[in-house]
């Protein structure tokens, strides 16, 4: 096992980030817009999975409400960035209420406000439901996400009801997505690597023992849940400005989204931040590759029709298999750190 000192690690991290920026820049300049869009999506997915991983993997509760917070962030930020004229044009059933009818603001502020409102929702949901036992918490958060979807369909003067929001400005580019991912990772990693992280891991392993160490389990889980909700809101804003439409009738912001994020977290490993990002990348790439199954295939003049839904079937089968064979996720709880990376090379060098 190699142990590098803190300064070296910090220095290496700076270089690593610089390399990523350079790679993203090269990709943006040279690759076609379709691939650039996917790379942007990986950044957004990364934020989603890192924040869900904070709640489900680190603090040891199972939240199924992530899509709800994402939807809150998406709606709030979109309503804030869309021009007043635009809003008048699309809200045809009922006029949009104050303050949205008279506000238009830059993307950055709208995103932050989206995150804050999502965090407030997280507090309101977590406050009663984190007192419940784990299973009931899962059901309650699932219910919350469902309530958000029902509100989106019915609260016409805010959400435009079933018509959804259209022509949201497409502000989200590679830099916004990956910039916010960087912020998310830095904040969550330093939260988890300090004394709070130790307390959370203690809670995850044994609540009774953690309480006997003086840790207020409820309060720590609530803080974590709110922090996760904040970043879910941020990712929601980025997602909405990437999609440019929000349609509450389809599953873009429904339970299916939570499920997809859960797969990303599982591929990476419950509790590992680096794993969550890798999981997000693999999920985005896999779901593009597996598109192949859903498109018609031509073999010698015979056309075999694509089977729609095949991707989800493969993902859900993968999901169940991971849980049966490797319940802690493919990578487990291990983080990719400089020490681990160098130890790996070192060992190879020894041979």
């Amino acid at each position: 096992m190699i142990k590098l000192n803190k300064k070296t690690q910090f220095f290496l991290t700076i270089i690593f980030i610089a390399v990523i920026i350079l790679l993203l820049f090269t990709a943006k300049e040279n690759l076609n817009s379709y691939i650039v869009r996917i790379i942007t999506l990986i950044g957004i997915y990364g934020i989603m999975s890192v924040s869900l991983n904070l709640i489900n993997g680190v603090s040891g509760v199972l939240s199924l409400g992530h899509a709800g917070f994402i939807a809150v962030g998406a709606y709030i930020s979109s309503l804030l960035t869309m021009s007043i004229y635009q809003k008048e044009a699309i809200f045809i059933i009922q006029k949009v209420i104050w303050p949205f009818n008279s506000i238009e603001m830059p993307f950055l502020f709208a995103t932050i406000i989206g995150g804050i409102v999502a965090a407030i929702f997280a507090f309101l949901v977590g406050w009663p439901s984190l007192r419940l036992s784990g299973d009931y918490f899962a059901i309650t958060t699932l219910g919350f996400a469902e309530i958000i979807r029902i509100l989106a369909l019915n609260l016409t003067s805010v959400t435009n009801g079933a018509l959804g929001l259209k022509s949201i400005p497409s502000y989200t580019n590679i830099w916004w997505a990956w910039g916010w991912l960087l912020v998310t990772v830095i904040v969550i990693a330093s939260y988890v690597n300090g004394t709070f992280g130790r307390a959370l891991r203690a809670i995850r392993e044994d609540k009774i023992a953690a309480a006997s160490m003086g840790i207020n389990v409820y309060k720590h889980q609530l803080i974590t849940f709110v922090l996760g909700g904040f970043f879910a809101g941020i990712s929601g804003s980025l997602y909405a400005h990437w999609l440019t439409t929000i349609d509450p009738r389809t599953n873009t912001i429904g339970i299916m989204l939570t499920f997809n994020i859960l797969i990303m977290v599982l591929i990476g490993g419950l509790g590992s931040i680096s794993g969550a990002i890798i999981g997000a990348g693999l999920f985005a790439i896999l779901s593009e590759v597996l598109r192949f199954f859903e498109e018609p295939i031509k073999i010698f003049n015979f056309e075999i029709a694509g089977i729609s839904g095949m991707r989800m079937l493969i993902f859900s089968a993968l999901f169940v298999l991971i849980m049966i064979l490797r319940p802690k996720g493919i990578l487990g709880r291990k983080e990719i750190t400089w020490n681990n990376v160098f130890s790996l090379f070192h060992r190879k060098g020894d041979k």
Partner: protein
Amino acid sequence: MSFNNFIQNLLNGISIGSLYALIAVGYTMVYGILKLINFAHGDVFMMAVYFCFYAVTLFTVPWWLSVIIAVAGAALLGFLIDRVAYKPIRNAPRISALITAIGVSFFLESLAVVLFSGVAKSFRKVFPSFLGEMIIIGGEEQVKYGQNVIVGGTRIPVITIITIITTAAVLLILWRIVYHTKQGMAMRAVSMDIPTTSLMGVNVNNIIGMTFALGSALAGIGGILWAIRYPQLWPYMGFLPGIKAFIAAILGGIGSIFGAVVGGLILGVLEIMIVGFFPSLAGYKDAFAFLILIVVLSVKPSGLMGQKEIKKV
């Protein structure tokens, strides 16, 4: 609301409530033994309806036979889910088991999309029309066709009566099985203490499998009655009724079969009554259950009939 209207709503609520009860019993039995929310239970409900649908439309089986096929299919499916997905992780942490259950649920839904397509299918005319069907007009449920029985000025759809009677009969049979057979006794023993029961020479895995099969069969019956009422079937139809039935099970006190039935009836009647009294809330109907859940759990975490668990340190 007139008196006749009230009675109509009440009966309507009871019949929806008995459907929740039928599904909730399966949840509560599995939870009582494994402490696992079997998220896939709602999807077994959905699968049973598809079995029934294809038995009639594709294989032109008489409708009564299709019911038997569907219920048997549901039971088998429940048994298989336990064997394939849950049995390997019996000793894993509860959070892993819960995540697996969610995965199985999505697997079944995706499988249904691939096998039966994601487009909704009509369940009309699968069953004889005297059973009738409900459609939703302006938020209020009304009978579109099918026969009604008129009692003292109150029109009662035949399907409402059939639902209530079937549920009562099925629950009576279940009660006989659980409290008056050897297998039922084994089930109750397993739900109290798995290691001790296995030391008594009971094959615990078989009993758990049987519980899954029994619960799934009930969900299958519930599914078919549901589809006659709301004659549209699609792969995600089991999600909401499933979640609501689980809430009903919690409401009544998870682990108690009687509690699940009471919880289901309360939830069904409340849902219909709230919309009946406040028609403007009809759009939010599906959100009530969750609000009720949060309120009940905050006031009495063990549910209405449940027993308080003693924390073991």
